[in-house]
C-alpha cells in the first residue's frame, strides 16, 4: 500500500526488489555439456522491481497465476531468499507459513512429530507438553496420537500439519505473518470450517498479514488491499474487490 502520509507507520517496505533464478532444462552431465558446448540453464526473472510499502496491521492479498512470483515474494520478505537487487525492510517479528508443511517424518508418531516440528520452531519441551493436547484435539487425532505418520491418511496428515502450524503461529506473537497457500487446508468439510475460523481469528489480531492464495473469496473477504502479480511484476494494486474483478476478467478473456 503506497502512501506519502508522514504519519504512516510502515511494517514492510520493498524498494525495487528483483530476483533471478537459474533454471536447468535437462539433467545432462557436466562432461556432455563440456563436449557439446550446450548450456542447459538460463536466468529467469521471478521478481521484477517490485516495490510496496505496507502499514502496520494491514491485511494484504497477493494473487496471480502459478509461477507469477507470489511465493518468491513472500520468501524474500521472510528472509528465506535474498533479493538480487533492491531492498527489503521488515519491522518486527516475521513468521512465514507455507501450505507445504514442515516435512513431518513418516517414521515418527503423531506425538513425536509434534515435538519435532515445534522443536524446530524453537519451542521448549515444557511449552510443547502444555500445547500437545490443544494441537492434537484441534486436528481430531487423539486416537492416533501414538500411530506412526505413514499409517495415516493424507487428509489426516494435512490436518496435523495445519494444526501444528497454526498453533505455533498463534504462540509466536508475530508482527508480520506471511501465509503462502496456507489456506490449502485438507481434511473434511467440518475441519476446513474450523481451520478457516481459526485462521480468520489469527489474521485479525493486529499483525500485518500477507496472504498469497488462489482462494479469491477468502482474499476478497479479509484483505483490504490486493496486489496482482504477473510474471514477477505488479500488474495491478488496489482495493481487493477491484483487483480480483480485473483478474477474473483477464481469465475469462
Amino acid at each position, binding site marked *: 500500500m503506497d502512501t506519502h502520509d508522514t504519519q504512516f507507520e510502515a511494517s514492510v517496505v520493498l524498494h525495487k526488489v528483483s530476483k533471478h533464478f537459474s533454471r536447468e532444462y535437462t539433467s545432462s552431465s557436466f562432461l556432455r555439456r563440456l563436449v557439446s558446448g550446450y548450456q542447459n540453464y538460463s536466468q529467469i526473472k521471478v521478481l521484477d522491481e517490485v516495490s510496496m510499502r505496507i502499514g502496520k496491521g494491514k491485511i494484504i492479498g497477493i494473487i496471480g497465476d502459478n509461477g507469477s512470483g507470489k511465493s518468491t515474494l513472500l520468501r524474500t520478505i*521472510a*528472509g528465506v531468499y535474498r533479493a538480487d537487487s533492491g531492498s527489503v525492510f521488515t519491522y518486527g517479528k516475521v513468521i512465514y507459513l*507455507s501450505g*507445504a*508443511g514442515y*516435512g513431518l517424518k513418516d517414521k515418527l508418531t503423531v506425538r513425536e512429530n509434534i515435538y*519435532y516440528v515445534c*522443536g*524446530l520452531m524453537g519451542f521448549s519441551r515444557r511449552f510443547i507438553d502444555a500445547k500437545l493436547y490443544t494441537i492434537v484435539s484441534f486436528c481430531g487425532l487423539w486416537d492416533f496420537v501414538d500411530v506412526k505418520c505413514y499409517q495415516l491418511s493424507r487428509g489426516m496428515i494435512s490436518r496435523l500439519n495445519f494444526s501444528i502450524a497454526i498453533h505455533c503461529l498463534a504462540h509466536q506473537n508475530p508482527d508480520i505473518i506471511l501465509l503462502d497457500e496456507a489456506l490449502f487446508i485438507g481434511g473434511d468439510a467440518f475441519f476446513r470450517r474450523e481451520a478457516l475460523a481459526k485462521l480468520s481469528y489469527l489474521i485479525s489480531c493486529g499483525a500485518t498479514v500477507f496472504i498469497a492464495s488462489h482462494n479469491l473469496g477468502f482474499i476478497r473477504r479479509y484483505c483490504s488491499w490486493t496486489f496482482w502479480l504477473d510474471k514477477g511484476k505488479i500488474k495491478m494494486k488496489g482495493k481487493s474487490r477491484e483487483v480480483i474483478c480485473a483478474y477474473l476478467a483477464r481469465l475469462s478473456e
Partner: protein
Amino acid sequence: MEDCSGLMSFVESFEQLMRTSNTIAWTGFRLRNEGSYFGVLWYLFEPLFLFFVLLSLRPVFVKEAIPYYPVYLLTGIIIFNFFSKATHYSVSLFSRNASLLKSTNIARESLVFGGVLQFLFSHFFEFLLLLVVSLLFGITPGWFFWYLLVLVAFVFFICGCCFILCVLGVYFNDLDNLWSVFMRLLWFLTPIFYIPPNNSIFLFFNFFNPLFYFITLFRASILGQFLFETFFVVLFFGLFFFFVGILFFNLFKYRIVERI
C-alpha cells in the same frame, strides 16, 4: 541499555539455535535405526564388528608390537567413524531438507549443528565401548578429562568441515561420490589399524592430515601421555576450520536455498 538488549537478543537467538539443533539431532539419531530389531544397539555393533575383523587381521597389517593394540585400534576406528559419518551426512544435508528450508526461516546453521550433534550422540555409545575395552586391558579411566578436552577441539573441527561440505554439496552433485572415495583413501592413509611407517610420502601426507594429529592425541590421552604440543596443533586445526567454515557458510547460506 542498548548493548544489554543486543546481548539479550544474541543469547535468545543462540538458545533457540541450540534448541533447534538438539531437536534435529535427537530426531535424526532416533530415525537412523528406526524399525530395526536391535535399534540403538547398532551404534555399538557397527564399530565392534569392524574392530573384531581388523583385530583378527592384525598379523597381516601389524608386524611390530604395539602396547594395548585393541585400545589403539578401537580409538582409531571410533574417531575416524565420527569424522567420516558426520562429514558424509553433511554433503547432502541441504538437498535432504529442501522442503523444510523453503517453508520456514529456521537458522540454517542449526541443520549443520544438529547433524554433528547427532553423530556426537552415537560417538557416546562408541566411547562407552572404548571405556569397557580400556578397562579390560587395565587402563584406569583417569584419561577421561583429556579425552573430553580433545573431543571439544575435534567437534569444532568437524563442524567447520561440515559447514564447508554442506555448501559445496549443493553446488556439486558429484561431491557425494567423491567424498566417499576420499574417505576410503583417508581410511588407509591415516594410521588407524597400523603404525605409521617411516616413509617420506606417508609422513608428508600426514603432516597435513588433521585426523592424524587428532587420533594420535586421543590415543596418547587414553594412555595417560598428554602431548601438549600436539594439543595446540589440534586446537589450531579445530578453531581454524570452524571459523573458516562459518565464514564460507555465511557467504552462501542464502543462495543455497535457491539451488535446492
